[in-house]
Structure formats: C-alpha cells, structure tokens
C-alpha cells in the first residue's frame, strides 16, 4: 500500500505563497476577513512560517511552508473523543467534519498547530467552489488532507480505465502550484519515487523530530551557498 508523503526543499522555497493560495482555492478554505484575521483566526491549511535570521536580522528571512505533517504517530488522533480524526491506512490523517464535536482537543494536542477551527460559519456553498471538497460548517476543526479528494478522483479514473494508478497521477495542489518546484509529492514506500530518494538525502530533516511524531512531510535544509 502506498504511503503518501511530501518533501519540501527549503533551499528552493522563495516564500511566494503560491502554495498557500493554491491550497485555499483547491480546498474551499474560507477567507475569514480582515477583522477575524486580526483576532488570530486565519484558516490556512498550508502556512508559510517566517523567521528572521539570527545573524542578519532584518535582512534575511527564512521560510518554512507548513502543511499538516501527516504524522505516522499523530498526537491529534489519539485525543479525539469521537474518532473524528484518524490516520488512514495510506498514512493520511483525516478529519470527519460531519462527526467532529468541536472540542478542539486535537488543536491543543498538535505540536505543529496544523489544525484550524471554524469560529463562525465563514462560508456557504456558492458557485466557484471546488465541488469535490465539502464546505465546513461552523464549530468544527479542519485541516490539510493532502488533497485526498484528488487521490480518490485519480483512483476512480484508473479504475474506469482498468489500470493501476500511475505515479505522478496524484499530486497535491500545493506541490502542483509551486513555481520553484520546492514541493515534491509522492509515495514514500515506492523506492523508484522522487520523494523516496529525497527523503534519504543528507539534507533531510523532520520538524520536531524529537517528539516522536514521525511526520511524513520531510524538509531539506538550506544549503551552504544560499543567499
């Protein structure tokens, strides 16, 4: 069985936020408005975190695109009292919006703050939305799903054409949109895939590895000759 994962090369990332916008459009992530944004309620499944370089403060910024890291040992799923969030057999941490009771325990437990809450009803079903992704109601938690609907779609297409799912047929919106090709998506269990190769690069690291969450989003550190 496939094990979906992502490699993000920080050396290539320019901080352009294309992944963020692609994700929002693809997944019907609501725009909460300026007032709510000021109150710290932006919903952004993919978020580019910025940090000032310690040595060259004010001049150099570092960027870290952060989707849900799809941990293999997720701290959020364990604490959910109703099985509304779980790790599926292919390693994707899913959220069942129709079951979530909105206790926000998973948000409190996630060390990466990758889960978001619908504080209000931020949007209604409207033309222009992606019909493959459900619109979330108020009071539930939502998160990056590795564009799971794209996998379902690709798999159905392959099934209809009576063939196996081809590598590269299922890619997340953020990986597709990245102009610097910093985001690579694929099957971590397939030795022929690019993510498999990159995940074993000496530059590879995982966020907060010491917590034992075993994320399937792998970062490549910035090389020596940056800047």
């Amino acid at each position, binding site marked *: 069985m496939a094990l979906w994962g992502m490699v993000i090369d920080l050396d290539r990332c320019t901080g352009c936020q294309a992944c963020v916008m692609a994700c929002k459009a693809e997944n019907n992530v609501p725009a909460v408005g300026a007032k*709510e944004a000021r*109150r*710290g*309620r*932006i919903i952004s499944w993919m978020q580019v*975190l*910025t*940090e000032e370089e310690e040595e060259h403060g004010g001049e150099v910024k570092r960027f*870290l695109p*952060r989707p849900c890291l799809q941990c293999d040992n997720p*701290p959020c799923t*364990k*604490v*959910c*009292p*109703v*099985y*509304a969030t779980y790790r599926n057999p292919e390693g994707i941490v899913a959220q069942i919006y129709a*079951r*979530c*009771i*909105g*206790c*926000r*325990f998973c*948000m*409190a*437990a996630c*060390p*990466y*703050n990758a889960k*978001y*809450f*619908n*504080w*209000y*009803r931020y949007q209604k079903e409207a033309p222009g939305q992606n019909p493959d992704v459900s619109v979330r*109601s*108020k*009071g*539930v*938690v939502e998160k990056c799903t590795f564009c799971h609907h794209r996998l379902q779609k690709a798999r159905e297409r392959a099934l209809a054409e009576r063939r196996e799912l081809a590598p590269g047929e299922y890619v997340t919106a953020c990986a597709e949109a990245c102009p610097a090709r910093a985001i690579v998506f694929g099957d971590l269990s397939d030795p022929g895939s690019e993510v498999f190769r990159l995940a074993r690069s000496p530059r590879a690291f995982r*966020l*907060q590895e010491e*917590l034992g*969450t075993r994320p399937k989003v792998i970062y490549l550190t910035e090389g020596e000759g940056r800047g």
Partner: protein
Amino acid sequence: MADPADTRDAALLFPIELTGRGFYVTVGLLSLLILWGAIAYWTQFDEGLGVTGLHQPVSWGFYVTNFVFFIGISHAGTLISAILRLSKAEWRRPITRMAEVITVMVLFIGAGQILIDLGRPDRMMNIIRYGRYQSPLLWDATSISAYLTASIVYLYIPMIPDIAILRDRVGKRKLLYTVLALGWQGTEHQQKVLNRAIAIMAVLVIPIAVSVHSVVSFVFSMTLQPMWRSTIFGPYFVVGAIFSGIAALIVAMLVFRKAYGLHGYLKPIHFRYLGQLLLVMSLLWFYFTFAEYLTAYYGNEPEEMHVFWAKFSGPFWPFFWGMVLTNFVIPVLCLVRLGRRTIGKVLIASLSVTVGMWLERFIIVVPTLSNPRLPFGEGIYFPTWVEWGELAGSFALFALFFVLFTKLFPVISIWEIREGREVGLKEVEERLLTYLPDTAEPRLAEPERGW
C-alpha cells in the same frame, strides 16, 4: 430517633418552614447573573464560538479553566466528608451535609462547562455513539459520571432520616418527603442498614474522587505540549482540588451560618479545624507548585522556558504572581495563628484561595497554548463579555442550586447532630478509653493486694 417532640434543633428547620425577603432578593440577584450567562450562551450557540476571545493558537480559555476549577471544587465535598466520617472526627457532624451538597451541585456546573465549550453541542451524543477510549476526554466523561452518581447516592442516603423528620414535622410538600423518606421509621434495623450503607459509600467515593481530578489533569499531561506534559499533574491537580474544595466549603458554611443564624451549630472550633486543614493543603500545594516549576526551570528546555517566562515575567505575570499571593502568602499569613478572630481570618483565607485556585487553573491552561513550538508568534487571549457572562452565570447557577436545596432540605444533618448528643458522646468516651494504656486492671488488682 426521629422524635417529633424534640424541638431542640428547630433552628435547622426554619429555612424550610419560613421564607423571608432575603431569599427572594438572593434568588432575584442570582437570576440576573444567570440571565446574563444565558444570553451569552445563546449568542454563542447562535453565532458560533467566534463571539469568545478564543483563537489560534489559544483554542482553550475560560471554559476549560472553569471546567477544571469547578470539578476541583467538587472535591470539597464528598471527599472531605468521607474522610471525616471514616476517621470518626466528631466535629464533622454539622459539616458533612453541606460538603456533599457542594459536590453534587458543582459537578453539574463543571460538566456543563465542557458542553459550553463544544463547537457543535448538537453532536454531543457522538461521545457515546462513537466514543474512543484512547481519548482522555472519555476518561473524564466516565470518571465524572461515576463520581456524580456516587455523590448523589452519598448525599441522599444520609438525608433519609432527615427527610422523615420533614415528613412528620413540616406541613408542606408531604408527597415529596413521603416518597423520598422511603418509609423511614428509625427502627434499630433501619439505622443499622443506613450506617452500613453510609460507610460503604464513604469508602467507595474516595478512590472515585481521586480518579476524577487525576483524569482531568490527564487531559493536559497526556499531550506533548510544554509545561503540560508532567508526571506530577495527577496528584498536583488532586491536591489543588481538595485545597479549593475546602476553601469553597468554608465560604459556603459562613454564608449559611449568617443567612440562617446557625451560629449555635457552626462554631469557631469548626472553622479553626477546617482552617488548619486549609493551611496544610496550602503548604502542600506550594510544595507541588515549587517542584513542578523548579523541574521545568532546571531542565531549561527552550520550549518549556518560553512558557515558563511567559508566566514568570511575560504577559501572564499578574496571574502567576497573583496565584502565588492568593494561594500561598495570604492563606498562610491568615491561618498560621488562629487564636483570635478565627472566623474573619478563615474567611479571608478561603476567599483568597477560591480566587487563587481559579487563577492556577488559568495559568496552567492558557500560557502553554499561547506559546506554540513553531514560530507563529504569541497568541494573547482576551476573554469577551460572553465568557465573563458564562463565568458569572456558572457561579450564580451553583449558588442558586445550593440556596434552593436549603429551602427543601436541612443544610445541617439533624439526625447526625442528635446522634452526636445521644450516642456520640458516650461512644467517644468509650473509644478514648480504648486508646489509653490498660491501667484499669492493676488498679482493680490493688485492693486484692491490700487484703
């Protein structure tokens, strides 16, 4: 035992027989606060949790603080009463009933906080339909419902003889009292069964009570978050719970002592003993707090230190140092010498601890969330009128429940006071004799030697 001619304890029945203006004023004031809370909740239910001050990353705030706080208060009760009963502390007699009432009332309020906190309260039954036992929230649900059940039983059983007195003496609500008295006649057999049942329940509620606040703490300590993941959280929370529980109990006792003129029953000696218990708990609480923070500080992990400094000197310093002041400095200063003005000092200490333990819960819940591990920027949390309304409403609802209870049932156990006069005195004397070295035999033998 329930001799209708015995009018010595008529003072305890007054609040049930007569209702003065004070009662209506109190109920009116409390209702206003409850109305505020109800409007606040309706607003939140209608519009969403957005009307609160919660956000990313501080997704838990007042409601979870209140939850931990109120569930903590519930330890007043049943636990203290059970321990005092089991240790045969004779001074318990006028106290146990109030302690048990607090537990039952406050558990409803505490459990309610979690429902208020839900984004989708309409789906709350999912906890039963799809319950996942790996989640500490399910442990809470189990433990708290067990505690609530046990506490109701433990409140009710010792009330049966009193309800029988009400049935025989008070003209009102005949049907209610007759049903609830379960045909109590005060026969020797009934009394024996009753005492046995009380003893069983007293033993049973202690482990349940300890489990309740342990699992409440596990909600935090089972996560990986800095300053939450701590092995002493279970006992730390239990100690804090008993601490705040005693304080709330003392406040309630003083309120009803004044309102219903119970000076003859709740004497300074009772407050002195409870005050000493409070002092011990204050020291114990300080010890736990010290151990907890010193360990974090000495380990010096960057993430833990972020939270640590946020509490010590960062945005949360007024709450942190306020907590130290109200939970340790003030109570210790008040309680260390209780010779004169016992009641005033005990009251100040108890009010102070009630505030302090709320601050303690807040200082555990919020700073950790507001200092995420990744560079998101700190989240500062300002509650809105909705959360203040819920807080005021919750306190008022608790007070209202309590006041209404005192209008239906005696707030001090009548039969236990009588038992103290009739049986307790003799029993204590006999028991005391068994504690002493057996000097009786040689003394009896002496005259023989004389012969």
